[in-house]
């Protein structure tokens, strides 16, 4: 097998490995989205009585 063939073979292997690295480095993994509705009742002005009730019932 002459030197030219070996060179081309090595070049092909380097090219394919490099392409794989490049694709992995640029591949977008995507994002997760979580949507949680917030009731107006949760955005009420807190009072001392409300705080005590929340602590008693473990509401949070």
């Amino acid at each position, binding site marked *: *097998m002459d030197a030219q*063939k070996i*060179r*081309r*073979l*090595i*070049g*092909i*292997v*380097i*090219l*394919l*490995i*490099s*392409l*794989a*690295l*490049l*694709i*992995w*480095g*640029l*591949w977008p*993994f*995507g*994002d*997760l*989205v*979580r*949507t*949680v*509705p*917030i*009731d*107006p*009742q*949760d*955005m*009420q*002005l*807190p*009072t001392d009585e*409300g705080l005590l*009730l929340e602590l*008693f*019932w473990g509401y*949070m």
Partner: protein
Amino acid sequence: MSYKYRCLVLSYSLALLFAGILLTSCMAAPTPELIIRTEIIEKTVVEAPTDGASEAFPPIATPSLAPTPETTPLPAVPEERLMVLEWPPKIRVGDSDLIILTLELDEEGNLSATAQFEDHQVRSSQVQIPNLYDTHNVVAQARLDMAGVEFSPQGEISEPMRPGVPVKFTWSVLPRQVGSYRGTLWLHLQFIPLDGGESSRQALSAQVIDIEAVNLFGVGGVPARFIGAVGTVVGALLSMDKIGGWIWRAIKTVLPKTKSKNDAE
């Protein structure tokens, strides 16, 4: 089959197999959009049996945050909001990405309150609830707690909440090492009275998020892209050395034709 042809077929097959394994491991499954609905749990009062033992254990009154006809409703923010949290489940080591928390307005955005009466029936009706924006400045505060990764900004971020205006918080996250990282994102509301009284604070939500930092055979994101780019050029030059000659010959054949055309004009 000639020796040269066999070598070529073998090398292409191995490379395609390797690339295919790599791509299938990289391809993320379609990420479903997670929608979590909060459930309102209605507690009911259980009436004790009419016997002597019941006197020792009087029924426990059920507290309710809904307004009753006898009490003045608490001021509240007069709009329904959605908390939308967006984060990357996977990040390459050395790369940064964003975690975004948005307090959007609900599509309907209307306030509908329920009134609970003494007979424990729940009836939906329009109840006049004082508008919190009239008496207070409302500030949304968010804080990200996550160990093991660098993120910015640190500490608590405060943004004023205005009627009808969405509020957005953004953090930049940068993992330096491979691993799974779990963090908590806190959201509070601070109510500052307009007349200068003492401010109060209420926790709205605490969301847990998981981020996985990955690399490829010990190579992070930036080195992988650099090695990939350089290796692609080198590999192309080594394996397709005749292409350079073909391009040069094509340029040489086109250039004399255009030069002679310009001379004729």
